[in-house]
């Protein structure tokens, strides 16, 4: 059959879980639709930097974009519920929560008024801090100038409470800023630290307790509808199938990134269980007034927390 629709998928990174997902979608959707839906993958921000790609999905110039959940918050504040630390115990637990049918019900309405819909959710890695001065205890964070993975209060306030000076900057600028010690460290994931060779600049990485980088593949709702019932069902089913990359590829990718860090002389420090509990408590206190101001986010967060408890 002749091509009737194009599905452009945009991702900020190259050769990682997102490109693997694109590959699966291309094989699945093109195969089952008999070529009526053509799938084109655009890694490395080829279709534009993240804020624009997100708008692109909202307005339909791009059909699907993949990004850390934080980039959707400016469009749909409710996504912030997924950014609060303390929801998941570990990645496997988090993936179980995200794959749960009840979670999908909660999330399916997110972004509806903005014309977008989460089609695929995953967890890249724990959020870690890479720093010149090793972070072994919460006290080590005090006084450090740290790049945060997002500019919103959810990212800033917990660090501020621990006595750090959080500031937001792009990933491209964080590395040179760390090298010349404009900042003392940066929060992101080990995948990012390994890919960008942060080990050239600093060796210490510490995973923050119960904090994870959740990302989403977001689709344009109107485009999904425009496919017609048959093709829409194919795309949705293939997206659900492609979710298998979370376990099959994502965890292996995380292992690879961890090994890359270690073989290049990098080290991991671990925060003790007692300190971890205290960290989650501090985060709760810091985040409570922020959630109080956003009842919808609080509602989503509470619902997700209940599911997380059930699946522990």
């Amino acid at each position, binding site marked *: 059959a002749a091509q009737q629709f194009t599905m452009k998928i945009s991702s900020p990174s190259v050769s990682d879980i997102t490109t693997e997902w694109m590959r699966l979608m291309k094989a699945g959707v093109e195969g089952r639709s008999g070529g009526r839906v053509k799938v084109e993958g655009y890694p490395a921000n080829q279709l534009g930097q993240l804020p624009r790609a997100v708008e692109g999905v909202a307005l339909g110039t791009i059909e699907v974009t993949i990004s850390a959940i934080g980039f959707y918050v400016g469009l749909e504040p409710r996504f912030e519920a997924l950014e609060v630390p303390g929801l998941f115990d570990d990645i496997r637990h988090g993936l179980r929560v995200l794959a749960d049918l009840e979670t999908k019900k909660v999330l399916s309405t997110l972004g509806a008024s903005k014309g977008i819909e989460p089609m695929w959710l995953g967890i890249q890695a724990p959020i870690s801090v890479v720093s010149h001065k090793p972070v072994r205890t919460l006290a080590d964070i005090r006084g450090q100038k740290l790049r945060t993975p997002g500019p919103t209060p959810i990212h800033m306030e917990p660090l501020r409470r621990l006595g750090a000076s959080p500031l937001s900057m*792009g990933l491209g600028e964080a590395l040179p800023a760390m090298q010349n010690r404009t900042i003392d460290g940066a929060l992101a994931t080990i995948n990012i630290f390994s*890919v960008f060779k942060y080990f050239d600049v600093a060796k210490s990485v510490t995973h923050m307790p119960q904090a994870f980088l959740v990302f989403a593949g977001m689709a344009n709702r109107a485009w999904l509808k425009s496919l017609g019932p048959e093709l829409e069902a194919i795309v949705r089913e293939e997206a659900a199938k492609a979710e298998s990359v979370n376990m099959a590829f994502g965890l292996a990718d995380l292992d690879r990134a961890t090994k890359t860090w270690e073989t290049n002389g990098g080290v991991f420090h671990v925060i003790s269980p007692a300190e971890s509990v205290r960290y989650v408590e501090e985060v709760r206190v810091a985040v409570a007034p922020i959630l109080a101001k956003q009842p919808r986010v609080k509602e989503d967060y509470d619902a997700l927390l209940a599911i997380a408890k059930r699946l522990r």
Partner: protein
Amino acid sequence: MSFALGVVPIVLLLLGFPIYLVLLTAVSVALVFYMNIPLAALHQNMFGAIDVYALLAIPYFIYAGELMGRGSVAQRLVDFVQAGVGSVRGSLGVTTVGTSAIFGAISGASVATVATIGRVMLPAMRKAGYPEKFTAGLITSVGAIDIIIPPSIPMIIYGMAAEQSVPRLYAAGVIPGLMLATMLAVYVIWFARRNGIGAGEAFDGKRFLSATGRGVWALGAPFIILGGIYGGVFAPTEAAGVACVYAAFVTRFVYRELSWRDIMRAAGTTAIFTGQVLIIVSCAAVFAWLLTVNQVPATVVSWLQALAMPNWALLLTINVILLAIGCFLDPLSAILLLSPLLVPVVKAAGIDPIHFGIIFTVNLAIGLFHPPFGMNIFVAQSVLKLELPVIYRGILPFLVIYLVALMLITYIPDISLVGVNWLLRAN
């Protein structure tokens, strides 16, 4: 589609339409008549290209240059270099190269170097009897060293797009940048000898000391900027803004040359210049985006791979493609468009992506002054009021030097990689 994105822009360009209008026409025709993409893509990409923090370095470096040019800061910097190299025949030309290299270590945007250095050196070289063609060619091309010597905006963008470490790229750029400066200086001296211009004067220790003394505040600029960057006081983009404050402070309070009104006027000029340059970057971004979604770069790359060439031929072909692209696109669009596609090809061929980053940067540096147009040519026209035909003819010998350097850098990876290995050992 090739009509919209190929024929239309070339015809309009030759008819002398404003460049932003040429690009805008091409992308609008493509979007309206050939493509099934929501028209929102037009605004989205025009806006998205400018909504970039790192681009602030452009007006900041321009403004700092504007202030230094209006006051005597740049002049004093030039006097200092001149007092040092004055005994050489062709010393003014060598000074232009030397000052540009120093400036390159402060600035990450080539246009600022052309504007600032050009404003001081152009009248001086004219007075000393250098042919207009030679001066125009030197000043227009020499600023391109700036993006090869760190800091460099294109290297930051390449690092982002190709997922390579920016500090490694910076370290890799030092030797190629200095090598280019040396080659240019040698040519300048040869040219001056052959044409009997710019006779040297005996080195005068007293004059050197006095030039150093008069230039202390001017010489402070590189120290403040470099010291600030490497000492961890500010990031590269911020450094450009700090340079403005320093230049304003020195010209207003130390040398007392500029009034507040002058400082404001310089800011107005900067805003206008920013409008001239960024409107092109903005429209070029839509053009690049349309090439991408029509899978043009991807097709070129798969064609490249299918040829299964040996590495030397692959690199040569890529160089030719990049030079061609550099004739029409600004460096930022070119990097964003091509590096995600070319880097995997290059990696698969066993070529170091950092080495490739330098090859890429040097190509784009050449594109900055390679006819028919480039940012440096624009600046030479609009700020220095040089005639286009004069620039075109003057550029040729310098183009040859840059191309020779490009070949050396392409085929001798160590020119780039020695610096990286040194950095890693130092760590």
